[in-house]
């Protein structure tokens, strides 16, 4: 359907030549912006509804008092994947979990997976790479959160919390619980305005990503990257992971670029490692975390997530 719209605009209405590179880039741009914009809006609305009925305090309640012999990490990781992520809320959330008695390692499982496997990334993957790749990406992200959180919990890192956090954790907390008894139609305006806000916030990234993707699509010859970053280049995965750290951006902007890179010869595992590192290892995130934990814990956190991402990149290149 979206291809039909792009075809109609460019070839029928404007009668452009589809052998021209600029026209190819433009076609890609129109097609992808329509498709991605539509998908993103759909998912944001859906998540808004889920979030309204299952807010973060419910998530915490669900995780409290759960001693599942390691499975609580998997549970936290799954909930992290299902919860919309916003870096601006990660500190209050971090403290809130710890105050609720959730162990640090379990909280970290949640915090690692939440940006790594977020709903927008998933739906874009689904639209662009298909079901199989999306499922593998989701499972891999959830495993990274589970395993890294589990390993970190064995390291007894509670000492590396900042002093003000430790002090607050000692204070008794009165559970803030708000019952939301509104009906769906009463919630609707909230859900709608939030969905529209999020949409407006991320669309510039999407359009930017699609524009860059479109240029790559139109101008870079097929297979071009293979000679530099093919599977036989063993450094490609770690290099793309490291390159991704300063490139924090919305997942929605990165995926359209990745699509074009994969189409031009970058192996999918390398591309996925890049993608995971962009969302899961971001400098702004580290700077935020710096306020609640000491530098050593951040270093351990980043390096273990980074190593897992690199390992997954190699694995994907082997099996996909």
């Amino acid at each position, binding site marked *: 359907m979206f291809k039909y719209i792009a075809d109609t605009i460019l070839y029928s209405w404007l009668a452009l030549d589809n052998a021209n590179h600029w026209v190819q880039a433009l076609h890609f741009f129109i097609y992808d912006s329509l498709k991605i914009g539509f998908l993103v809006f759909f998912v944001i609305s859906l998540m808004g509804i889920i979030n309204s009925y299952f807010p973060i305090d419910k998530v915490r309640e669900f995780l409290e008092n759960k001693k599942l012999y390691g499975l609580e990490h998997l549970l936290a990781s799954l909930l992290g994947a299902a919860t919309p992520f916003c870096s601006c809320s990660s*500190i209050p959330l971090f403290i809130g979990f710890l*105050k609720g008695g959730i162990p640090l390692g379990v909280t970290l499982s949640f915090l690692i997976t939440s940006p790594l496997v977020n709903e927008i990334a998933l739906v874009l993957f689904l639209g662009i790479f298909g079901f199989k790749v999306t499922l593998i990406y989701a499972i891999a992200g959830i495993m990274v959160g589970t395993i890294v959180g589990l390993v970190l919990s064995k390291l007894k890192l509670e000492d590396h919390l900042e002093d*003000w956090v430790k002090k607050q954790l000692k204070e008794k907390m009165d559970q803030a619980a708000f019952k939301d008894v509104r009906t769906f139609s009463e919630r609707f305006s909230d859900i709608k305005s939030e969905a529209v806000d999020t949409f407006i916030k991320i669309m510039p990234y999407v359009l930017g990503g699609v524009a860059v993707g479109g240029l790559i699509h139109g101008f870079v010859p097929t297979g071009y990257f293979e000679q530099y970053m093919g599977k036989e280049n063993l450094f490609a995965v770690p290099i793309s992971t490291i390159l991704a750290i300063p490139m924090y951006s919305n997942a929605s902007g990165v995926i359209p670029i990745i699509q074009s890179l994969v189409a031009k010869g970058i192996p999918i595992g390398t591309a996925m490692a890049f993608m995971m590192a962009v969302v899961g290892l971001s400098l702004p995130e580290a700077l935020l975390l710096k306020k609640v934990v000491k530098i050593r814990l951040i270093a351990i956190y980043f390096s273990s997530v980074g190593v897992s991402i690199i390992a997954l990149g190699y694995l994907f290149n082997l099996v996909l």
Partner: protein
Amino acid sequence: MIIKILGSGCKSCKKLESNTKQALSELSIVAEVQKVTDYIEITKYNAMKTPALVIDEKLVSFGKVNDVSEIKSFLE
């Protein structure tokens, strides 16, 4: 009455602030509206998501921008 808006200064915090001020003026309540942007302060109130609303040191809502009528119901 002291009302605190917790949040790191994002757009939704400003919206919450203006809704709060409107609710106050509609009920003709005189209150001090303070903005709290420091994480140490924010987490003291057990707000897990910003923006959050604190009335007289009691957290009444977090993670959403309340509309004017809802804020009125908190104030009454």
